[in-house]
């Protein structure tokens, strides 16, 4: 208030009622509740869209559902599910296809970002490498479906290059069929990891690099011994995010292979979709959903939480 007397009378209005002023007292409870109030709408919305379906799926999984007719069957759906070879195949496919694709994407993205991040035209490279990621996944699935299967372009190119003699039936063999899914995923999503890795490499302290160079380290050594360890939390977060999407792969399977040949490219997402919306066996599909939900929760607790904690630091 000393300022007031210095700056003259005109300012008095800034502090109204000077002689017997009263400071406003506000509800302490409101102050404590305020952060909860801010976060409540978002949490309520998410609960509606996750908790309700979760509970619904658990209940429905205990019934045999035929249209509007629900018949209680206890744990029968689960017993059937665990004895169902198609279910285990789908689970196995998801891990195989996802694992191979994720490994490839990670290695390629690291390799390319290693060569790109010091390049003077990095901005241009980034834009070019981004392109595949920005196509709708459903469109990308069609690009590759046409290239591999319907248009036979890839077979034709391989014949011209002399690698093979005849057209390849991509959907006739288990691994070739899986390969088409892997190629489509690698093509579209390696950029995702690349963008993140390049940003991490560009963001690292240049002085550390320079010091290492003075110590006689080459670029490859710097990358291996300094950049890579520093990037570990970033890689963890990026791989976790990509891993989640890959393990729930649906669009490409739906459009490209529909699970052929013989269910060997069917992922767990497609399995649930097929049981639920093609065979209309909702109770059974819900049982599979619940199993997948439990796996998700375990993975989220064990891996995701840790990855994001380390990513923050």
């Amino acid at each position, binding site marked *: 208030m000393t300022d007031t007397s*210095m700056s003259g009378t005109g300012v008095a209005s800034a502090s109204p009622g000077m002689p017997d002023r009263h400071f406003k007292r506000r509800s302490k409870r409101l102050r404590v509740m305020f952060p909860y109030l801010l976060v409540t709408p978002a949490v309520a919305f998410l609960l509606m869209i996750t908790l309700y379906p979760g509970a619904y799926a658990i209940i429905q999984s205990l019934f045999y559902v035929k249209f509007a007719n629900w018949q209680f069957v206890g744990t029968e759906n689960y017993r059937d599910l665990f004895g169902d070879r198609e279910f285990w195949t789908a689970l196995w496919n998801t891990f195989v296809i996802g694992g191979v694709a994720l490994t490839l994407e990670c290695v390629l993205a690291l390799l390319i970002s290693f060569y790109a991040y010091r390049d003077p035209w990095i901005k241009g490279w980034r834009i070019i490498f981004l392109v595949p990621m920005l196509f709708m996944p459903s469109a990308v699935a069609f690009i590759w479906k046409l290239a591999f299967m319907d248009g036979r372009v890839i077979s034709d190119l391989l014949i011209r290059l002399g690698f093979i003699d005849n057209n390849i039936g991509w959907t006739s063999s288990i691994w070739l069929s899986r390969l088409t899914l892997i190629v489509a995923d690698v093509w579209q999503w390696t950029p995702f990891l690349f963008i993140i890795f390049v940003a991490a490499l560009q963001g690292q302290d240049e002085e550390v690099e320079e010091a290492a160079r003075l110590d006689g380290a080459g670029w490859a050594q710097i990358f291996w011994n300094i950049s890579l360890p520093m990037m570990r939390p970033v890689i963890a977060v990026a791989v976790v995010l990509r891993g989640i999407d890959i393990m729930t792969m649906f669009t490409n399977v739906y459009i490209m292979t529909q699970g052929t040949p013989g269910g060997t490219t069917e992922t767990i997402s497609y399995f649930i979709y097929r049981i639920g919306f093609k065979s209309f066996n909702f109770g059974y599909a819900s049982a599979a959903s619940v199993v997948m939900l439990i796996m998700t929760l375990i993975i989220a607790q064990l891996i995701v939480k840790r990855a994001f904690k380390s990513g923050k630091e």
Partner: protein
Amino acid sequence: MAQIELVGIQKKWGAVWGVRDVNIDISDEEFIVFLGPSGCGKTTTMRMIAGLEDPSEGEIRVGGERMNDIDARDRDAAMVFQGYALYPNMSIYENIRFPLRMRKVPKAEHDTLVRRAADLVEMGIISIVNPQLCPAVSDKELPWHGRSCAARKCF
């Protein structure tokens, strides 16, 4: 009126002492300087007076009234921050005007008050004319930033 009393003020974060048993009596229009090595609690004490930090124990009184439960925004205290804390999305003029808007001073008086505050810290016309935004803390610092920050507190 603006007589400030700190009675047995303490601040503790867990087992760490921030401020330990401070008793000061500052009378109206008195000019007080806190001196001390870093980490001795100067800033924390000031933040407690301004209401940005709740004391763990003790009482803060202004003009005889207990201030502990009063929000910082209602205390009508002025504080110049170490990093200036200019709002980077506003021009210097808007920065100085901000407290007037928050305290619902009639709009008609704003211009006069802002100009007077600017004069008071001797940055005169520059703040009024210069429409440029205040850069964020990490950006380049301009000579008049400290002063604009002080001007904001001159009401």
